[in-house]
């Protein structure tokens, strides 16, 4: 069920992305950091659902709050003339690698288990 909605959401997203008029370049910086934050939340959500830890509330709040906080920090960095957004990127991408690692290990485990099952049979 969820997979279906994911696919539908992606397709609609692509359409929307092309239809919406180009945003001004100055804003693009903030959107970029928000996307990174969002991706981090998504992978975090996937990883937690694998660990059977998934909490929808945490996921949704994380998704939006992280994005907003990231944008605010970038803006603050602009005003202070300090590239704060760099730190955010390091954290988010770092966490992404972590979560992707967890996902990878889980599926590798699953595959080798299936293999094992197959062999035994």
């Amino acid at each position: 069920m969820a997979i279906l909605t994911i696919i539908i959401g992606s397709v609609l997203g692509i359409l929307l992305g092309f239809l919406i008029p180009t945003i001004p370049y100055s804003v693009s910086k903030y959107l970029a950091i928000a996307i990174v934050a969002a991706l981090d939340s998504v992978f975090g959500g996937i990883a937690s659902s694998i660990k059977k830890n998934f909490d929808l509330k945490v996921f949704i709040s994380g998704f939006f709050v992280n994005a907003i906080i990231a944008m605010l920090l970038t803006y603050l960095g602009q005003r202070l003339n300090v590239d704060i957004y760099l730190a955010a990127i390091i954290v988010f991408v770092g966490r992404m690698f972590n979560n992707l690692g967890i996902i990878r290990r889980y599926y590798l485990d699953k595959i080798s288990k299936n293999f094992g099952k197959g062999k035994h049979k």
Partner: protein
Amino acid sequence: MKVKVDKQKMQMAIIIGIITLLLVSSMFIQFKAVDKSQESNIESLRSDELTTQIATYKSRYEETMEQYEENQNTISEYKSTMDENKESTNLLDKELNDTETLLGLTDVQGEGLIITLKDTNEATYTASDLLTLINELKYAGAEAISINDNRVVNLTEITAINNSFIMMNSDSRISSPYTVKVIGDKSYLMSTLNLKNSGFVDLMRVNNLEITVEESKNVVINKYSKEITAKKMKEVE
């Protein structure tokens, strides 16, 4: 229970779908924005690229300014040299122009006389007659003389060829009627030519030669168009 679970699952699915929509659309919006900005106008560069561009333009500007100042200095040097030269050139130019005019190398105009000499069946003009006229005109202060539009200059000769025709200025043939134009003080010229008995008019009339003298406020005399050489003579201090 099952319905509740299904409902929850539905909810989650929908929420996840919405979130995917948001995420994917943001990504594609961003892709579009970045793609557009890849046209490297200076107006759409990021700050670090801007600083390098500015540094480049700054050094280019400074180089150009140096060049420009050098050029300006050279120009003002030339200008002042030119101004110095201009004055002496102007004086020389004026002297040259005046000299050419005095030699008869330019077209001139001024007050004077127009004298017409006509051969008749009874009497014809000779080269000597023309020479006598020219001599008298010079005596009377003529500044420029021409015969049938041939300018009389310093070394102009008037020669009779075989008593059939008259040549002047090496290769110009002239024949009756002879139009002699003179520029000078027209009343003085007139009175000199018309002196009783000794003036040219009387001299010619005595010999039954036809002559008319007319005063004019505006005589135009053409320049001497041949070469004046200094092949044999050399200037001595």
